[in-house]
């Protein structure tokens, strides 16, 4: 039995509408005040298939009612009843999200047609949504970027599928290179927020003083250099998902501000007093052990509990050995096709090495290794030598020929101190095969400094390339 909710402060019209629809097999609920009806719908006490609402009512108008339903992402079709015959009112109703509008005096046969159309639309939309999620679950299409069939990985993916539709914040833990951002993106695509933006920020890659204005935005003149008004990432992600990568590196002062945003669901730009409402989901990730950071006083426990509503842990590649070969095959096909080379498989020695290697840089390191091997391979299959030839001579992301020389060989000429520092950083990164954590540790600098220096190196390389 289809349910109709009628909201009109004119009780006579409510009753006559009920008297018309009830004998035709509809269940009709009446409300003379839109606020109470809204509350009942939002709390799930009423689950109508179609809503008829009067446009002009004393407390909450029909348009405001539609707006509030829209804000809560409730898609029940609403038919507006109006005593105004002008086109503007009708247009305004449809623009606000009404399914249809009818003009008083009520013409019941006409209202019946409108209600039946709304019910049909509601049914089709519900079927569409059910089919869409069934297809996604069957094919795992939204998770297709995450390769692997190990029980440890499948367990995480299964949980990710189940929680994607919820509104709760998600916390992804796992070593660098395990695919935390890929998983976060997949969760966003599977969620009801997929039509809005996925905004990602790496909290450790942005200098502390800029991170706040990146996240919150700023008004013009809020600080030196703020020449333009700018919206922050919180607002960019409105309606969608904000991915806070390396949340463990967020400064304590900013953690307090983030906590307030999560609690109040409001954001205030730097230099402004006005707060704006927010509707977004936060997915955070870090390679750090946040519980131990809490013990050291480096991470707020209350923020951790707010972020860690649904915890997902991506296991390192060494704990899911059965995923190494399928991943290697996948990257082989990908890079063979990209480079248009005819490399089709791995030699027996290469396979043995792939499985036995420790893969400290996880999937990212495996991908870089296979890409390199595909490019240098001269045979139809990857040999052990293709995988290990540049073990100590190349590192991902560094393309200078000088990388192939030893550090001592590079120091034949006098050069500015800054250049030596940058070259040495590149050299250590290269020795560590692109592992930034280890490089920062070896150089006894923090990750932020390393990222900043690497950014400078990239910019200089880019400038060099464009001027040459």
């Amino acid at each position, binding site marked *: 039995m289809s349910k109709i909710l009628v909201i009109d*402060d*004119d*009780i*006579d*019209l409510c*009753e*006559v509408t009920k008297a018309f629809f009830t004998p035709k097999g509809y269940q009709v609920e009446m409300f003379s005040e839109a606020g109470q009806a809204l509350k009942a719908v939002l709390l799930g006490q009423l689950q109508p298939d179609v809503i008829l609402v*009067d446009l*002009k009512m*004393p407390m909450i108008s029909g348009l405001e009612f539609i707006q509030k339903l829209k804000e809560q992402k409730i898609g029940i079709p609403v038919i507006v009843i109006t*005593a105004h015959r002008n086109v503007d009112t009708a247009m305004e109703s449809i623009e606000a999200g009404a399914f249809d509008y009818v003009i*008083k*005096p*009520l013409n019941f046969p006409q209202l019946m047609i409108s209600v039946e159309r709304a019910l049909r639309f509601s049914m089709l939309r519900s079927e569409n949504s059910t089919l869409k999620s069934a297809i996604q679950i069957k094919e795992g299409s939204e998770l297709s970027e995450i390769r692997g069939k190990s029980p440890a990985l499948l367990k995480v993916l299964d949980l990710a599928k189940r929680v994607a539709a919820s509104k709760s914040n998600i916390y992804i833990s796992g070593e660098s290179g395990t695919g935390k951002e890929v998983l976060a993106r997949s969760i966003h695509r599977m969620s009801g927020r997929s039509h809005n933006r996925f905004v990602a920020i790496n909290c450790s890659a942005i200098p502390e003083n800029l991170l706040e204005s990146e996240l919150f935005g700023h008004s013009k003149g809020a600080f030196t250099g703020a020449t333009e008004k700018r919206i922050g990432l919180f607002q960019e992600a409105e309606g969608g998902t904000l991915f806070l990568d390396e949340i463990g590196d967020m400064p304590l002062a900013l953690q307090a501000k983030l906590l307030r945003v999560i609690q109040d669901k409001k954001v205030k730009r730097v230099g402004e007093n006005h707060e704006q409402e927010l509707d977004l989901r936060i997915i955070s990730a870090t390679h750090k052990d946040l519980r131990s950071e809490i013990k050291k006083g480096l991470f707020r426990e209350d923020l951790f509990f707010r972020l860690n509503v649904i915890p997902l842990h991506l296991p390192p590649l060494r704990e899911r050995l059965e995923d190494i070969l399928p991943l290697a095959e996948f990257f082989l096909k990908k890079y063979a096709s990209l480079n248009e080379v005819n490399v089709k498989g791995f030699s027996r020695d290469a396979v043995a090495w792939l499985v036995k290697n420790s893969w400290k840089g996880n999937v990212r390191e495996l991908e870089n290794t296979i890409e390199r091997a595909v490019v240098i391979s001269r045979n139809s299959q990857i040999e052990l030598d293709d995988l290990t030839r540049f073990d100590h001579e190349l590192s991902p992301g560094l393309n200078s020929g000088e990388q192939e020389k030893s550090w001592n060989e590079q120091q034949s000429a006098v050069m500015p101190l800054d250049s030596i520092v940058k070259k040495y950083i590149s050299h250590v990164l290269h020795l560590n095969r692109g592992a930034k954590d280890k490089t920062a540790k070896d150089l006894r600098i923090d990750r932020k400094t390393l990222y900043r220096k690497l950014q400078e190196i990239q910019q200089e390389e880019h400038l060099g390339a464009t001027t040459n």
Partner: protein
Amino acid sequence: MQKYLERRRADYLACQIALRHQNFAFLARVGHTIKGNGDTFGFPELSTLGKELESAAARGDFSHITLLVGKLGDWLNCHSTAS
């Protein structure tokens, strides 16, 4: 139908009080309601009266409102004797 007429009689009494207090917002509200439901219940003349009442109340036209509330009373008398 009886209920509808009873409610209009209640509206009429409330309008008289509102008129004494010059509560134009309330009078406009009643006018709007009658404008909306009169036709639906088969009384187009009541819808017209409601429309006039709503606009007179919006203008704060006390004498015209008095006249219209009087007309509403006459209409009710006419229909209560008929029923």
